[in-house]
């Protein structure tokens, strides 16, 4: 029998047909799909005993209590511990993924330095010895020459034991400056201290006992202070019996959650504050004793009486009746007025901040229950702290060498502000950070510090807290061999310049000293994270017991300060008549320009260390703005002929930015809200570390603020 071509084809056809009735295609399909789950590029899960450790989220100043689920000692999940007595156990979305940050694609693998200062300079790996050999002479040169500027440390999380190490380091350098972030949430309390006629200790807000809070732009319900504390007190004001009034140009999340939202023309907050004071004066609603404690009372009254609600209504867009009602409400019950620094928008103008802070003095809020409390000083080992200077208040071109601490506070500021503070040739900037960020492009040297959960972290009193507090996060992961912690870096730098004052110590020892100081002071209570009742510090028989309580996730809360009479204050401070006149005038827009204002959420902006998974959710969900998006009112968009979701070019005097415009009626007409971050954080090839987004086109004003910038918008 001769085999023909047709026979072969029939046999093949039969084979194919038969194969369908065998496991071959179906099993191969199943096994192949399983095979793809085991590719070597997929990291294997850790295996081992599952344990739980209490710790504190190290990503921002709130220091929320967290429960870490660990497999073989490696944290694989974080969850909050709500309803603690300390009210700091509710994790935000960023905090829930804090354990991812150690694996961030933008982590620094070792010390790096830019090859120069020109645009063509690139970042090159260097050894730590080579970096110190290069940095040491520069530091000595700045120290020895007044014209070379000052040595400064920018501490983005002041109040830590590490902050004291920085201050100790600087104290040996004449003319040095201890600089803090411009956007501190409780910056207004610093303004109040500055208005005090006598030295004044730390302050806090007694939100628990207050009745009414008037917030001028502070994002109280959007991550401000300790998020759980604010949510419990103000998210449901009908339950708490409190009133939250939000003054803001757009309907932010806080404005939406507030009892009342007062939409205000951008930049007229100072005039509105003066108008509230006008009503309080005319109706005699202020406590009479302030006439004795306010040193410039007559000048203030004369100023205020010029701001009648009717003309101010036309200026601010807030009706006269609303101004009168609001003034009566804050004067009729224990109240707090907050001038809010925003993590993206930065501080209010100096004059506005003083005038808003002055309302608290007019209401007699300092040292009053439900007002502004005087906090006790944190027990400390090193006395003689240096004065803090917010970055925007540092004299221009005065810093010759800047060390930026990598403990990011979760807020941002324009690089142009930093450059303005450096000497004319740019000086030298050293950045201590575990990863590349928008701030890296400003630095000459990058020191790779351990990542959160690899390092010993301290959580001192969070912004606005009524009592001092302290907790620590012990490392859950081993740091990389190339990491250099800040304590060691300062020690090496001291050796390099021959001062050697730092000695050999470790981050753990630094924190232990503070723990010992608290135990020695014998006051306050340590609250365990399991919700058990607190243990008085006086019940700890020695420092080891107290330290162990902190290692177990405990949080120390200080006793309230003894009642004290409010001191004497100047309500207008150093403001000149010209400054006052300017403060109460609305900002003039150029022609048909749109007003650009940056927005962002604490710890989720370009310079923040956020898990790439979350930044991807930010990118894809549109639940919040992310880098490259901007919100605009539909009416304004219609006038510009812009559709929802269309690409546009935003142009200011500082530069241009391409954004995707989204229509949002919550944004005030004429305003453009552009998100500072977050970035794709290494998940996108388009990311570069010098991409600071909207902040790059924000104009920094004379007083160092950058809240509003005139821009034009064109279709892309």
């Amino acid at each position, binding site marked *: 029998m001769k085999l023909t071509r047709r*026979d072969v084809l*029939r046999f093949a*056809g039969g084979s*194919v047909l*038969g194969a369908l*009735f*065998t*496991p071959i295609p179906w099993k191969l399909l*199943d096994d192949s799909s399983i095979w793809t789950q*085991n590719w070597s590029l997929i990291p294997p899960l850790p295996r081992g005993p599952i344990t739980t450790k209490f710790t504190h989220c190290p990503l921002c100043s709130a220091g929320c209590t967290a429960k870490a689920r660990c497999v073989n000692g490696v944290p694989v999940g974080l969850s909050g511990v709500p309803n603690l007595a300390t009210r700091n156990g509710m994790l935000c979305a960023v905090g829930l993924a804090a354990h991812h940050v150690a694996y961030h694609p933008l982590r620094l693998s070792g010390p790096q330095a830019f090859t120069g200062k020109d645009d063509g300079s690139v970042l090159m790996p260097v050894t730590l010895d080579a970096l110190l050999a290069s940095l040491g002479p520069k530091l000595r040169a700045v120290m020895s020459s007044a014209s070379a500027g000052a040595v400064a440390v920018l501490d983005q999380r002041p109040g830590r034991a590490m902050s004291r190490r920085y201050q100790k380091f600087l104290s040996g350098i004449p003319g040095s400056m201890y600089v803090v972030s411009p956007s501190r949430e409780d910056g207004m309390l610093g303004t109040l201290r500055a208005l005090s006629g006598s030295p004044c200790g730390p302050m806090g807000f007694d939100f628990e006992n207050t009745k009414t809070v008037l917030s001028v732009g502070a994002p109280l319900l959007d991550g401000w202070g300790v998020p759980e504390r604010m949510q419990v007190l103000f998210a449901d004001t009908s339950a708490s019996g409190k009133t939250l009034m939000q003054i803001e140009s757009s309907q932010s999340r806080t404005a939406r959650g507030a009892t009342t939202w007062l939409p205000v023309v951008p930049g007229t907050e100072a005039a509105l504050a003066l108008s509230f004071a006008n009503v309080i004066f005319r109706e005699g609603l202020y406590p009479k004793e302030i006439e004795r404690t306010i040193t410039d009372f007559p000048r203030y009254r004369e100023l205020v009486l010029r701001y009648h609600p009717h003309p101010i209504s036309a200026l601010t867009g807030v009706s006269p009746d609303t101004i009168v009602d609001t003034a009566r409400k804050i004067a009729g019950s224990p109240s707090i007025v907050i001038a809010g620094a925003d993590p993206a928008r930065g501080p209010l103008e100096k004059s506005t901040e003083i005038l808003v802070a002055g309302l608290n003095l007019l209401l007699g809020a300092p040292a009053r229950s439900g007002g502004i409390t005087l906090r006790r000083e944190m027990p400390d080992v090193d006395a003689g702290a240096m004065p803090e200077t917010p970055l925007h208040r540092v004299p221009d071109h005065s810093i010759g060498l800047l060390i930026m601490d990598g403990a990011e506070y979760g807020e941002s500021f324009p690089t142009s502000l930093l450059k303005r503070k450096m000497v004319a040739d740019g000086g030298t900037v050293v950045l201590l950070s575990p990863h590349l960020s928008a701030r890296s492009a400003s630095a000459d040297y990058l020191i790779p510090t351990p990542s959160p959960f690899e390092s010993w972290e301290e959580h001192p009193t969070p912004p606005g807290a009524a009592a001092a507090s302290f907790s620590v996060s012990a490392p859950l992961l081993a740091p990389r061999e190339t990491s250099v912690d800040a304590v060691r870096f300062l020690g090496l730098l001291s050796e390099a310049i021959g001062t050697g004052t730092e000695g050999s110590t470790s981050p753990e020892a630094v924190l232990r000293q503070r723990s010992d100081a608290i135990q020695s002071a014998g006051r306050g209570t340590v609250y365990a994270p399991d919700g058990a009742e607190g243990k008085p510090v006086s019940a700890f028989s020695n420092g080891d017991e107290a330290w162990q309580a902190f290692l177990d996730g405990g949080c120390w809360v200080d006793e309230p300060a003894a009642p004290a009479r409010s001191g004497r204050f100047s309500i207008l401070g150093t403001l000149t008549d010209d400054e006052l006149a300017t403060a109460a005038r609305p900002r003039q827009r150029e022609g048909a320009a749109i007003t650009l204002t940056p927005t962002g959420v604490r710890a989720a902006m370009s310079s923040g260390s956020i898990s790439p998974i979350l930044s991807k959710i930010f990118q894809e969900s549109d639940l919040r703005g992310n880098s490259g998006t901007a919100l605009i009112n539909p009416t304004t968009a219609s006038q510009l002929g812009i559709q929802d979701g269309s690409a546009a070019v935003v142009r200011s005097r500082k530069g241009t930015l391409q954004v995707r415009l989204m229509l949002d009626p919550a944004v005030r007409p004429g305003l453009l809200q552009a998100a500072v971050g977050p970035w794709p954080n290494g998940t996108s090839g388009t990311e570069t570390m010098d991409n600071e987004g909207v902040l790059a086109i924000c104009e920094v004003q004379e007083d160092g603020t950058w809240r509003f910038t005139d821009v034009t918008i064109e279709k892309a």
Partner: protein
Amino acid sequence: MKYRGVAFLLAGVLASLALGWFVFPMVLYRTESQPIGFNHAIHTGEANGMTCDMCHEFAEDGRFNGIPVTAKCADCHSTALGSTETEKRLIEEFITPGKEIPWKVYSRQPDNAYFSHATHVMKGKLTCEECHGPHGSSSELPTYQVNRISGYSRDIWGRNISGVPSEPWEGMKMDRCVQCHADRNKVDGCVACHK
């Protein structure tokens, strides 16, 4: 020849069927030997009367410890309990040097599948046999066959290449989990097992 075409077609079908059902499993699976023999029956039988959880124990906090560590074996086998070659090897190669036995696990699941013995045994009251069959009464370990493509044990798919279990306890694929949950009216979402 009248049926020549049909004959070649059928020959092709038969060849495929033979290849698929008999040759393919032999090619797909590779047989690997366990590091040492083990007789479950001698431990659990009348002579010793041990229960499964005496070796495959639950920790005090409810965690399942899975395959026992060598130290557990050493509780009884610190010295040889007999003169067999296997016993001699157990003592010399593993217990004396304190080395763990690199068992090949028949029921090892992928990393993306989360399974809690504590939940199923302690709370769901499942017996070991319902999933593992008469493993505990076997006198020698079954042949360990590994899928050359997926890398998992043949016992996950089931001994029958068709995927149809010949015994109720055969196979540990997801469809069996789903069926068992459905039978007990315990319907869960994806994240119950794929966390």
